[in-house]
């Protein structure tokens, strides 16, 4: 895992907050995923500027959880979405 990699939401994916259901959602050509609050926050930070390392730092501060405890979960989430083509890692 290279923590200096920069994740970006890919062009086919769109993140929005669905007012009707009061839930964040990720939209893509053939479907959608409703997200929990943490997933939403991670994706909001996948802005093509922050490194994965920065995202881990920001979220561990926000949730007051140790970095080591969050790092693996964040990576797993990012890699899963990468595999489905919703995130690009550069």
């Amino acid at each position, binding site marked *: 895992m290279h923590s200096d990699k920069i994740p970006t939401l*890919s*062009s*086919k994916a*769109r993140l*929005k907050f*669905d007012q*009707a*259901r009061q839930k964040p*959602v990720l*939209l*893509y*050509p*053939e*479907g*959608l995923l409703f997200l929990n609050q943490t997933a939403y926050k991670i994706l909001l930070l996948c802005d093509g500027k922050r490194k994965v390392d920065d995202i881990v730092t920001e979220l561990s501060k926000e949730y007051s959880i140790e970095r080591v405890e969050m790092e693996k979960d964040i990576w797993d989430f990012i890699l899963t979405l*990468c*595999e*489905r*083509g919703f995130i690009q890692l550069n």
Partner: protein
Amino acid sequence: MSNLKLLPLSLLCELTFHCPLECPYCSNTLGYSKWLKEELSTEEWIRVLQEAQRLGILQVYFSGGEPLVRKDLPVLIRTAHDLGLYSNMSTGGTLINRKLLKKIKEAGLDSIQLSIQDCRPESADLFSGVKKSFEKKIEAVQLINEFSIPLGINVVIHRHNIERISEIIDFAAALGAQRLELANTQYYGWALHNRKELLPRRHQVEKAAKEASNAKEKYKGKMEILFVIPDYYSSFPKPCLQGWAKVYMTVSADGTVLPCQSARDIRSLSFPNIRSDTLENIWWNSEAFNKFRGTDFLPEPCKSCPRKEIDFGGCRCQAFLFTADASATDPVCIYSPHHHLIEKIVEEINAPKENNKSKEPTFVYRTIKNSKALCCS
């Protein structure tokens, strides 16, 4: 149960029944020619999109026929975009040119699904019924890539192209598709009419499934590949639409509102029209949408089967087409009392035949003339 769970997610807009191609496996209803002059106006479509957004719909699929036939397509895409809807266009691609694509991109289209008939020009043009259509599609793909619009490719699979599945996959990857849907023909509308020419043989299906599965590994992370075996060869039905009137709705070219794009062929039901009702009222209160909601309507063997929460008894349209009862178990299911009807068709297709190997297909193409002839008879 909270009603929020029942809000629809996606809307299919069949903007027009006109299409420059004549594919014999088109899912449009055979009698589409009856409604050619009743197409919704721009204002009516804008109203549909506004009502869809208010109803909780998040995604819109512009389709047809060929959606690019409609001159107001950029306006409708812009409307969807401004309403915050994710917009997709399903197109044959032959009408795409630089100027039009630029307009569409600027209007805010999120993705394109382009259909390709085959990876070889001669066969592709034979299946679309139109000469040089393949060539035009390739030009369209180059433009789509140039404009960086996310591209998915859809290839309808049938007996006459299924043996080229590996070649088709490599071809789609070379075209730059992010996703490839190898859509085995579903037997409704024109495809049902041409079933004898389209349904693949068992050995073809098995070989293709293996090749598709290998290709999935090969293209992992580069191109997503979807291949589902034709349901006539499955033991259990497809979970059609994830359940009737659960997440999808379709507004057809003439304003008819359908729980599924093939539902018009369920002649025991009458469907509401957006010209005389609102999308919201249709979703919640129409008889057609409530008729098969949930699983309570299902008879045995579904009633006591745990799979009913997985496949919802299968496809209502297929149940009707085979049994004249739209609430019946989908006959694809091995437990259906009508399953022998499917078995008979599969047996016929797989019976050894002499001198049949290199026969040219004899399709009934989707043309206005054929539609009129078939529906007046």
